[in-house]
């Protein structure tokens, strides 16, 4: 009797937890949309989304500069992190001896735990002056932001890609080697293509982290309201926009910041959906050997 009761209790407890999580997510979406939609109505959908002037004091609320800024730093980060990350994943999965792996893998996972404000601090104090000296410009730049984001995104890409490469059935690798392929040929033409959904998912998840990064972006991008024409120019991201101004914004200004939040939510939604689809395909691809 007691066992039956605990069974039911456990079932309901788990069900309630899941419902609470779902309600929290729903609440966030509802509140952001509730406070953001008035801005779209008042300012106009196209003027808000594609306007290139953000000057709340002059009633200008165009967020195009921030959208482009977010996309630029994310693209820069992926450009650097994807080759590095996949290479490191291959190293950890296939090439490194177990002792090296024992050292490297925890080190990589440690990078995830470092708070982003610390990344921002190191970026501001070390990276920005270095870029100013060796590359020119003001130092505060898309380049600095991309490098900082690369450090943040790399662990995600490495760990998920490595797991994907390891998850490729041993028979694929053994078959390839048995047919006379070299190790590199096996990695390049058998393992990587087989693991590509997992690697793709890791890239997409890294993209999600990069788009959502706030603190470090405020510290190294300069927060200017202009487009960055070259990687050495300053700009502002969607997240930086919200964080710098939300404290004191009121009225339409506050609504416009929530509208920025809506845009961010939609980006994340798209990115996560792609990741889910990619992961599902990966699981299905390897389940019938």
């Amino acid at each position, binding site marked *: 009797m007691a066992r039956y009761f605990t069974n039911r209790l456990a079932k309901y407890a788990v069900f309630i937890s899941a419902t609470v999580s779902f309600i929290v997510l729903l609440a966030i979406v509802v509140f952001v949309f509730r406070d953001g939609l008035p801005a779209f109505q008042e300012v106009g959908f196209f003027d808000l989304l594609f306007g290139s002037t953000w000057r709340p004091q002059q009633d200008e609320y165009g967020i195009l500069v921030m959208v482009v800024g977010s996309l630029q730093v994310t693209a820069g980060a992926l450009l650097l992190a994807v080759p590095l990350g996949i290479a490191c994943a291959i190293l950890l999965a296939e090439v490194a001896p177990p002792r090296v792996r024992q050292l490297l893998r925890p080190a990589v996972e440690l990078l995830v735990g470092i708070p982003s404000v610390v990344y921002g601090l190191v970026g501001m104090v070390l990276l920005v002056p270095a870029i*100013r000296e060796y590359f020119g410009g*003001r130092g505060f730049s898309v380049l600095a932001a991309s490098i900082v984001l690369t450090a943040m995104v790399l662990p995600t890409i490495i760990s998920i890609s490595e797991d994907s490469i390891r998850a490729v059935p041993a028979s694929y690798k053994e078959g390839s080697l048995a047919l006379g392929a070299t190790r590199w040929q096996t990695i390049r033409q058998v393992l990587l293509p087989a693991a590509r959904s997992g690697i793709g998912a890791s890239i997409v998840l890294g993209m999600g982290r990069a788009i959502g990064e706030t603190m470090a972006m405020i510290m190294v991008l*300069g*927060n*200017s*309201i*202009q487009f960055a024409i070259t990687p050495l120019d300053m700009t502002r991201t969607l997240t930086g926009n919200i964080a710098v101004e939300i*404290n*004191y914004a*009121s009225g339409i200004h506050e609504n416009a910041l929530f509208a920025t939040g809506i845009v961010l939510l939609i980006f994340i939604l798209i990115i996560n959906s792609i990741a889910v689809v990619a992961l599902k395909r990966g699981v299905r691809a390897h389940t019938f050997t």
Partner: protein
Amino acid sequence: MNRKQLSKGLTLVTAAVLAVAVALTGCTGNGGTTTISMAGSTTVQPVAEALSDEYMTNVDTTVTITVAGGGSSVGVESAGEGTVDIGMASRAIKQEEFDEYPDLVVHHIASDGIAIVTDSDTSVDVTCLTILETRAIFSGNITNWADVGGANQTINVHAREEGSGTRAAFEDMVMGDEVITGEAALWPSNGALRTAVAGEPYSIGFLSFGYLDETVDAFALDAEEGGECVEATVENALSGDYPVVRPLNMLTDGEPTGKVDEFITWILGVDGQAIVAQDYIPVGPTS
């Protein structure tokens, strides 16, 4: 008693001790303290912290005062909404803000100069700027130090975010109708701006007098286009010679009462003003 019973017993005792400790943190020695919360301008923040330290230690030990930043607009909104006891603003209050918060009461506790600063490590070969030159530099019309008599280097402009009281006062008193250039790097506090200006050569920015230190050099300002260059010092601000001075205000929702009233009265008194006078311009006698 076997090992399992012993460890169970110890766990129970530890839990009981912790629970009692947590419960006791609610008790204080003299029957309860009042908390006064303050938030707003990062310019007023250092002097507010100095004042509250002195007040809590030597004047009224039953009061706990917390000070937070956020910018002048945060100070106005928090005071108006009643989320803090005292809001801080480093500028005059705008009419729209009085319209939105009609019960807002302004206490002018000090004045502060705004210095135009550059990084102290590199030399731009300019020591004095006129108001018009400053306006042209910050609006982006002048982009090279050579155009104001200095080294041939691009001017790197830094400014504050839009909700800043320092920025609002600067725009009011220096920029006039011109807008600060979009190419300026924007920072969320006096401290962040000072760090950025001090770290970048050939930079320029505006900073509260209270934040001046050895990492930045302040320009002397000439308000009359061909008149005298006035150094950025507290004496010159007191005498009225330095042209860019703004009020530092503490705001309350309605007339203050009780401990808040006592605190503000003390700030406006001799002891409080003596502390204000260390880095800012007092509004009352200091002795």
